[in-house]
């Protein structure tokens, strides 16, 4: 993508010059792939000396109607700041866009170097020294993330287990295709919902491979705070154990790189409180079902014509992956 042709380049350069000290302009603006619901742009700010690597997170086309679950970009920026203050590794937010900036809702943050693609993190030599420490780091980071003072949080939806189950049951029922294994999972979840968590906390909601910026030294930043909410902290520990996020490394339940024991130890050592493995398993089952239902609704976008791509269509044929994972969790053969 070349510079001058992009309509946001000139206004973005003005914003950067006005609000990030010492900058003289921007170069290398390009849209990054990934992030279906938010635009992510990479660019460098120029200064008298060196360049400053930055990221713009922006609503598609500059604005979008607030969805049921997404927090909005100003809230996302605030959460990143609060998490950073609680020692969670995050990219520093440099500026939150204002209406008069003319490029919509969004914010500018530092661009942290590293890798988010699971297959590289799980297989490349570059990350060989990081892999053994990642599960424990996940636990430590989640303990800090869950320690953020609730009184300081911006308004967030409160979503304990019952409302998460209801939300996905509704999506599944609206889609209409019969999935006996999903029904079995919904029934199991209803029968095994843990007692309400005594301590609701900030929950990241999408803490997994893809949203963790990882370097040879370990986790450098937690990204994509879009579906953060207040709920049971064990939700985050269960979600990263969903088999879909192990990317083939089925025997390494935490993100394909480590053990639950390492994650739980890290969590408890960093002050996260005692982990109840049964509660984490409940959230792993619910997380597996959630991903399965998300795969089925991708079909809706295909069938309605909103997205006729083959890629979109075939994601529907991945919901069966979660059915076999649910059976292995709830009705094991062995």
């Amino acid at each position, binding site marked *: 993508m070349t510079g001058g042709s992009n309509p946001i380049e000139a206004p973005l350069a003005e914003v950067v010059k006005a609000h990030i000290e010492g900058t003289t302009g921007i170069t290398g603006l390009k849209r990054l792939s990934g992030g279906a619901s938010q635009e992510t742009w990479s660019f460098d700010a120029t200064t008298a000396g060196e360049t400053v690597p930055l990221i713009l997170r922006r609503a598609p086309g500059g604005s979008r109607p607030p969805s049921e679950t997404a927090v909005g970009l100003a809230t996302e920026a605030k959460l990143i700041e609060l998490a950073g203050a609680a020692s969670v590794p995050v990219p520093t937010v440099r500026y939150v866009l204002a209406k008069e900036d003319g490029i919509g809702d969004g914010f500018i943050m530092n661009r942290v170097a590293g890798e988010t693609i699971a297959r590289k993190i799980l297989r490349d030599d570059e990350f060989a020294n990081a892999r053994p420490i990642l599960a424990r780091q996940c636990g430590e980071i989640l303990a800090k993330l869950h320690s953020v003072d609730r009184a300081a949080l911006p308004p967030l939806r409160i979503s304990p287990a019952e409302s998460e189950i209801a939300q996905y049951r509704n999506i599944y029922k609206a889609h209409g295709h019969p999935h006996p294994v999903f029904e*079995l999972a919904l029934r199991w979840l209803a029968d095994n919902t843990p007692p309400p968590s005594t301590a609701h906390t900030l929950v990241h909601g999408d803490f997994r491979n893809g949203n963790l910026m990882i370097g040879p030294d370990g986790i450098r930043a937690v990204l994509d705070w879009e579906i953060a909410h207040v709920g049971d902290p064990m939700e985050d520990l269960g979600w990263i154990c969903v088999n879909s996020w192990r990317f083939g490394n089925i025997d390494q339940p935490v993100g394909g790189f480590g053990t639950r024991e390492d994650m739980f130890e890290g969590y408890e050592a960093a002050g996260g409180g005692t982990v109840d493995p049964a509660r984490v398993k409940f959230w792993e089952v619910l997380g597996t079902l959630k991903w399965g239902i998300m795969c089925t609704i991708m079909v809706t976008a295909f069938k309605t014509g909103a997205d006729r791509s*083959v890629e979109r269509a075939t994601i529907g044929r991945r919901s069966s992956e979660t059915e076999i994972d649910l059976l292995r969790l709830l009705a094991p053969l062995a």
Partner: protein
Amino acid sequence: MQDQPTASELVEAVADFIRNHAMPQLQGHAAFHARVAANALDIVKRELDVAPTANAEEASRLAALLGMEASLEELNRELCRRIEAGEVGLDTPGLKDHLWRTTLTKLSIDQPNYSGYRRALDEEAKG
């Protein structure tokens, strides 16, 4: 009855064409989407090969389990209804076996390389 080649053979030939002749001449997004398209045709081929027999077996298992005759879709809707209502569960004779067989078939068509499927086949062989 249709003539030769079979639908499965035709689909296989198109997938081979995409992979071995079209894809090498494509770049970037187009190459990626061509790969996705070839993978989708692989699903179609496996479904053509596997589903006729497997669906008939699924329907007869469901008919026995539910004690009724209906289309495959109606049988599945009725099973869903009974599981939701708690009338049928893992303690119901035949349900666990039925769900496993049905799901293993789905994976053999949709994603035969999926880790959970490969592991389940190993576990089934051991069990």
